């Protein structure tokens, strides 16, 4: 019995699928469409938290990702860093991931730092600290003891902005960029539950459905992957800086949905034929 056109559509060669995906993703990267984005409440709330912090408040940013996490968190990390640096806040970088210091270094080169912002006075980079949640607890209870030197080996007592920052009582907001739920929960337990410090996070779309369970009580805001990063960019800069990636993502999602429908039409057609 020869196959109907619908049945044939259910057996498309994998190589054709891969080629289609490649074309659909590559075209918007070469010729961006610039699809508008809707800013979600989870992103807006984190933005508002940073925006409404009183001058001199201390913000900790913890990028917990390596090279493979760049597409997920890179946009958001740069957008939040840029936002905090634009405001009269004190910024601390800490990471609990071995590759984190390189991410911080790369971000500081790519974000435009306002000329009035000075290292050691307005922002400081402490680099990597081992120990996961134990390290988070150490930073929250006594940052001077937990990290005696910054990444340039400057003793913490010689860093001007650190003279007034000792423990969680002196901190206002922690934003963590991670796919690991333990990092988010660790920051909630050690900073939010104990000292009332606001905690926000950026996570992969896969983890987003879990992380929003803590929103808006324990987490002040949640950035959802690359699209959330773009939303944050829109709020900070009034435009999306890397819109072609979002267009590629949109087209990729659309292609998957179209082929889900094709696959299921073929599946139903086969079922009817067997009846």
């Amino acid at each position: 019995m020869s196959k109907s056109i619908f049945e044939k559509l259910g057996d498309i060669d994998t190589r054709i699928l891969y080629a289609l995906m490649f074309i659909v993703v590559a075209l918007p990267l070469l010729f961006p469409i610039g699809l508008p984005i809707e800013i979600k409440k989870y992103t807006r709330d984190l933005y508002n938290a940073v925006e409404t912090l009183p001058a001199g408040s201390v913000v900790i940013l913890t990028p917990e990702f390596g090279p493979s996490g760049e597409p997920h968190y890179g946009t958001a990390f740069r957008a939040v860093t840029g936002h905090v640096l634009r405001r009269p806040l004190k910024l601390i970088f800490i990471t609990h991931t071995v590759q984190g210091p390189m991410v911080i270094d790369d971000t500081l080169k790519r974000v435009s730092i306002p000329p009035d912002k000075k290292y050691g006075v307005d922002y400081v980079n402490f680099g990597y600290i081992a120990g996961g949640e134990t390290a988070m607890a150490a930073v929250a209870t006594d940052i001077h003891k937990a990290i005696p030197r910054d990444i340039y080996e400057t003793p913490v007592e010689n860093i001007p902005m650190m003279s007034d920052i000792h423990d969680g009582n002196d901190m206002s907001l922690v934003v963590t960029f991670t796919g690991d739920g333990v990092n988010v929960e660790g920051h909630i337990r050690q900073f939010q539950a104990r000292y009332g410090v606001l905690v926000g996070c950026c996570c992969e779309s896969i983890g987003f459905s879990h992380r929003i369970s803590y929103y808006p009580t324990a987490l002040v805001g949640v950035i959802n992957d690359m699209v959330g990063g773009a939303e944050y960019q829109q709020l900070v800069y009034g435009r999306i800086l890397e819109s072609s990636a979002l267009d590629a993502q949109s087209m990729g999602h659309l292609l998957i949905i179209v082929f889900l429908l094709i696959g299921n039409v073929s599946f139903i057609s086969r079922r009817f034929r067997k009846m």
Partner: protein
Amino acid sequence: MSIVMKRYIPMGITAIFALILLTDYFLVLKPLDNMGKTLINWGTLIAAYALFLGCAQLFRLHIRRVMRRNREWWLSIWTMLILIIFFLAGLYLGPTNETLSAWYTVISQSIGITTNAILAFYVFSASYRVLRIRTLEASALMLAAVFLMLTNAPIGAAISPLLPKIGSWILDVPNKSAQQGIIMCIAVGTIALGIRTLIGRETGYLGITEGEG
């Protein structure tokens, strides 16, 4: 090793340290606060030491693979070589060095992003072949996947403003309630595990299984 050394002393240390840290977490008492801070700092030092231990263990494993000429043993040599190069570079150049930073951006970041991007092809092929509306549950799963894909990319709102609203409802109502239930179950389970550890009923972390030692 005697049962005292193997079981009771580690259990006693765990119980004392856990009690100090728990009390310090919930009560404001100066002597306990200082003890708590010291213990937590010990924790970070031990974690840093564990990194070296992990490296040593990795070398032990790969040297054994090379000695036994296991399948693709040359990949073990490659792993150790890369580890040594990056370790020495980090040691001599420092974490803020421009060259090391360039290695990260040019090599590591590019490879990482490429490897991650390959997933799009697999996910596309797998979803096309596997996500079929065979049962009611499978249909619900597919519908949720479609709405969330349209919510997580700007294309959804471009097609219809209603699509992201449906996706957000799925996330906020059925998903959130189920997730919060799971979180509460985990929390209660963690408390039970903590109590069992404190009273010495939980010995898995000592490498002792039930009925042993």
